């Protein structure tokens, strides 16, 4: 039997934050968008700690700020780290100083079942044709470009959607991304495994840090401790992949073993019990999660979120990278569909900005790992930037093509970023002290400045809308159109210099 064939402007594969963001911002420009999600929402997902640009930038652009504010999510004002040379936790706060801590200098810890559902329902309200329980089985392409997808509908019928663009936001386990070509390059540096579960009754950091994520290093790795509600805590151990065999046996015992060797988390969980029922009752693992595809697009197709790349859980960058890419993809496709600029030009902007964001966070997170020194520990010795693996660097040099002059220069760049960061952390000092409340040392390091650049632009865009002004981020690059939903060529509009 021949499949049922439909037409659309864009097919988005995957209903997570990246897919919902892209789909919503395409529909806002009036395009016909079909979003195919293989599961039925709400569904479980990991990656629970958000950054302000997602909440106050993307959230406002999508029009979900109020809904998010009313969802009861834990408010975080930053991250607290038992990490590096200071035996006392220190804070990375979103506000540079207490007097500048306004409503936009916080983010949320979210149950992804709720957060992702809010974003997906919002996409549908904006006109996206959302189809759940609809797994994509194949990508339709010819030599010239990608033309659409095949999927199975909830009744088991084979269907085809022909579209001008396919956005692959189908996550880390899907194979749809292979149709973009290139290869997936795994990072040797962040070659970790995560083992995670949920606890009731864990302690909290003292206010106003009680909503912060806590990341605590121990000999064999580090533990995330995310307060999802007053009583529910997400706890995950990030350890070396060499320990994979230990996770084959009793995972419960393994997780408790890691917790027992991480003093602050052990204390926080002293009176807590692990959740053993319902969606949070399972212990889960993730491995091989740090990778990037060598290309993010081909004519007619673009990768967004975990389908494209993921770095590491340590600084809550997963949802940021995904929603940022969703925004970039929507801008790019809206531009082409409007006939404003050529596809090659706008996707050069897409790839350039997305790669840049990946690169600056990769550098930042490498510096973060480098800060923790533990000569006795295999895990931490292997995660010094001076030990960056050759294949890792080669992959990285390929990605930032031309930006660096080779491996040695790259190691020096990473080492400098790491030294800057370690120095700034030392000068900032412990949490809840006078110096520890002020982030100018940290925000002043070149690597953090780079990390903040686009996140700040997105926040300003979210708050100021059309009044927001943005400069080209890349040499000779494009700028967002006044409504922020497509690209414009600044060279074509010289009168707007002011």
């Amino acid at each position, binding site marked *: 039997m021949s499949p049922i064939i439909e037409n659309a402007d864009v097919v988005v594969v995957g209903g997570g934050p990246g897919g919902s963001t892209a789909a919503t911002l395409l529909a806002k420009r009036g395009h016909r968008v079909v979003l195919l999600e293989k599961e039925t929402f709400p569904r479980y997902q990991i990656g629970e700690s958000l950054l302000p640009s997602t909440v106050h930038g993307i959230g406002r652009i999508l029009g979900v700020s109020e809904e998010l504010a009313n969802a009861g999510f834990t408010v975080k004002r930053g991250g607290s780290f038992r990490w590096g040379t200071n035996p006392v936790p220190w804070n990375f706060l979103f*506000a*540079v100083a207490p007097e500048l801590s306004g409503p936009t200098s916080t983010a949320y810890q979210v149950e992804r079942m709720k957060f992702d559902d809010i974003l997906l329902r919002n996409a549908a309200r904006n006109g996206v044709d959302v189809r759940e329980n609809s797994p994509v089985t194949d990508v339709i392409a010819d030599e010239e470009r990608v033309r659409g997808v095949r999927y199975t509908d909830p009744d088991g019928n084979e269907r085809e959607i022909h579209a001008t663009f396919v956005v692959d936001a189908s996550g880390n386990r899907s194979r749809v991304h292979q149709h973009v070509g290139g290869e997936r390059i795994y990072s040797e540096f962040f070659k970790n495994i995560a083992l995670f579960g949920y606890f009731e009754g864990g302690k909290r950091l003292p206010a106003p840090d009680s909503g912060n994520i806590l990341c605590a290093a121990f000999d064999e790795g580090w533990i995330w401790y995310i307060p999802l509600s007053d009583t529910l805590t997400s706890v995950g151990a990030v350890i070396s992949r060499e320990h994979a065999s230990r996770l084959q046996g009793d995972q419960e015992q393994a997780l408790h073993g890691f917790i027992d060797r991480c003093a602050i988390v052990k204390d926080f969980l002293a009176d807590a019990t692990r959740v053993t029922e319902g969606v949070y009752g399972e212990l889960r693992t993730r491995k091989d999660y740090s990778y990037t595809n060598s290309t993010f697009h081909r004519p007619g197709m673009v990768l967004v979120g975990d389908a494209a790349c993921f770095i590491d859980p340590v600084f809550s960058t997963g949802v940021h990278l995904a929603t940022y890419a969703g925004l970039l993809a929507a801008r790019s496709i809206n531009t082409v569909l409007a006939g404003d600029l050529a596809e090659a030009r706008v996707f050069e902007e897409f790839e350039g900005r997305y790669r840049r964001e990946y690169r600056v966070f990769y550098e930042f997170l490498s510096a973060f790992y480098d800060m923790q020194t533990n000569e006795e520990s295999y895990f931490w010795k292997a995660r010094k930037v001076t030990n960056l693996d050759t294949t890792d660097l080669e992959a990285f040099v390929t990605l930032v093509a031309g930006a660096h002059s080779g491996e040695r220069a790259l190691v020096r760049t990473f080492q400098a970023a790491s030294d800057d960061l370690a120095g700034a952390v030392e000068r900032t000092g412990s949490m809840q002290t006078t110096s520890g409340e002020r982030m*100018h040392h940290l925000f002043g390091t070149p690597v953090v*400045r780079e990390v*903040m650049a686009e996140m700040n632009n997105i926040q300003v865009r979210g708050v100021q809308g059309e009044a927001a002004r943005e400069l080209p981020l890349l040499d000779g690059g494009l700028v967002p159109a006044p409504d922020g939903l497509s690209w414009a060529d600044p060279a074509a509009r010289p009168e707007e210099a002011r």
Partner: protein
Amino acid sequence: MNIERMRSDVAEALAEVAEEPAAFADDDNLIDLGLDSIRLMSLATRWRAAGFEAGYLDLAMEPTVAAWAQRLEASNVLEEKR
């Protein structure tokens, strides 16, 4: 880019955040008058477009027109030397 432009941009930004924006002197702390982080980021971008290379952090550290004007003057001198 000059100090007059700076003052008028600040007045505009303050008008966005305060119902009845107060008059401000060059050495008034603008954060105390209601200027927030978003407005500071936005000013930094606008001024960068006009050739004044001050970042958000620079503006946030010393939030007065007087301090920013000094920075502007220094950057203009640097520019002339080139």
